[in-house]
């Protein structure tokens, strides 16, 4: 999923302060839990309460889009709701916000979330960690399903550095050494020989900025 967290409410309040009619657009897409209708409503309630303390009244409309990053979906759901809307507060990731900005160039679109990375959650602990760096040249087949680019602090490609200690990274005692995890995983699969095989240099152009479908 894409991992986002709520921006501080006073920052969000600052964005929308000049406007009265604000559409809060949720996104049912990649985050877990999705910032959909419930989160849109919650945000509208919190902002209304905050606005009241500053003698500022808002007229919020709340809605949600299945995937805000899809410009066709965003346009078809939001266009009929845009009458009188002066600003949009988006609960999507940075991609969704930018898609709305393209679809509605005349209307200011503000992010209600900070977007962090592509990751997964250890749900009982409530900890979200990066899992994929979107490099365009997926290595997971030879690293036991553990990505060293996203999960090794240094993004190393050929094994642990000298800073790996007791399975932890030298940069943080909380952080697992990705190469230790890879080693343990390959050992379980009897595939340690993969670590000895040499690979051609990575094609960094693949990470690129544009691909065609």
């Amino acid at each position, binding site marked *: 999923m894409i991992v986002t967290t*709520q921006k*501080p*409410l*006073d920052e969000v309040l600052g964005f929308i302060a000049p406007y009265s009619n604000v559409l809060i657009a949720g996104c*049912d897409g990649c985050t*877990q*839990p*999705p*910032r*959909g*209708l*419930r*989160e849109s*409503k*919650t945000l509208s*309630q*919190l902002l*209304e*309460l*905050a606005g*009241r*303390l500053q003698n500022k009244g808002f007229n919020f409309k709340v809605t*949600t889009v*299945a995937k805000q990053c899809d410009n066709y979906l965003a346009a078809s759901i939001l266009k009929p709701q845009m009458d009188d809307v002066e600003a949009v507060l988006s609960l999507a990731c940075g991609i969704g916000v930018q898609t709305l900005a393209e679809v509605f160039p005349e209307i200011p679109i503000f992010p209600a979330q900070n977007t962090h990375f592509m990751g997964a959650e250890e*749900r009982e602990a409530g900890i979200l960690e990066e899992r994929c760096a979107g490099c365009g040249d997926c290595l997971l087949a030879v690293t036991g399903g553990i990505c060293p680019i996203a999960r090794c602090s240094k993004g190393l490609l050929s094994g642990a550095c000298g800073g790996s200690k007791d399975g932890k990274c030298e940069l943080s005692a909380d952080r697992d050494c990705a190469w230790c995890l890879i080693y343990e995983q390959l050992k379980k699969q009897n595939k340690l020989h993969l670590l000895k095989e040499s690979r051609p240099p990575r094609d960094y152009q693949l990470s690129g900025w544009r691909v065609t479908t």
Partner: protein
Amino acid sequence: MNEQATQGIVAVRQNMDYCSSCAVCSTLCPYEALKKDAETGKITLDVTKCQVCGLCYANCPARVIDILYYDLDSLLAYLEKARQETASDTLIIMCRGSAPDIEGVAELFGTSSFIPLLVPCVGRIPDEVYLKALLMGINNINVLACDVDYCRFERGSTTTGRKIIALNLLLDQLGYGRDIITLKRHSLKVKVDANLCIACGNCVFFCPYDAAELKSPGGITFDLSACRGCGLCVAMCPAIALELENWEQERISQLINRFSLEVEPPKILVFRCQWASFPPLNGQPAPNVRFIDLPCASRIDRFHILEAFQKGVDGVMIAACSEDDCKQEKASGRAQHSVANLGERLGQIGFKERLHFCTVSPRYPEELDKELEQFSQRIKELGKGG
């Protein structure tokens, strides 16, 4: 449980002078709070384990057990008063775990005129109540119990079933007819609006009973036989696609609206798990306090907390069971977490102090009062909210 509480009033007591060690109570107790000591043969009560279901009270042949809530005297006083005030000769005894609101109960039994008696478990009603009710001229006694596997006190519903069979046999012999007391079983479960569901699978993670399943393709399905109606999935659903029967979002909103208008300032609204504290029969809350009972604290919906503040309520308190006492697989812990989460966000706009989560138990009746008193004091000092 904290020491202070154990020194205060306790809801259940034994009067050992009358105890013949027959062990009916320890056999019935679902929580092993009452036990027969192997050496002395005496029955001992460990109050810290007691959940105040009242099964021991209703079934002790020697009336050894004293119970604070819904004891024989208060039940009979309630019936006398209700009999005078209501023209009906029909009594409906309802378990709060499975009883819908008054209109819903009327529909279930096909009668609009009846004397309602809502108790925390129908298993706690002593035989005398049924017999005295007949003496008062009540001719129909209906009992609404939980489905057997839905009973929050494990044995309350089965015990009631047996009790009613025995009473009906007795009453038949006395010439009252065979079916003077009728029993209905019921439960309140989740409802899905497939049009709103976005198939995110949050309910699958949160359901303590593995009742939710997400198939792709196929979407969400609930195994209603496994659902035990805590409402956690409803409160957590990002798409507002779930409802819990009798605790629909709209119904709770209406209560919040009504209470926010009638309550005196400083206005305090308490969302109370219906197993965490038992309101007295005929009891009235303080003029500045109103209670909304929830099936479990985990049904607490941040939407409703914020709505209360929007309607001018000055303080919102959530009274839950501790995780150990929770009748819903520790779902109250989830409630605590989500209230803390909302509290953090409310802190950003200066409302954090106006939200309070506490755990209480009916075994120490003063706990809720103390929490409420302290919270009221805090809200008074804070003054009027937004």
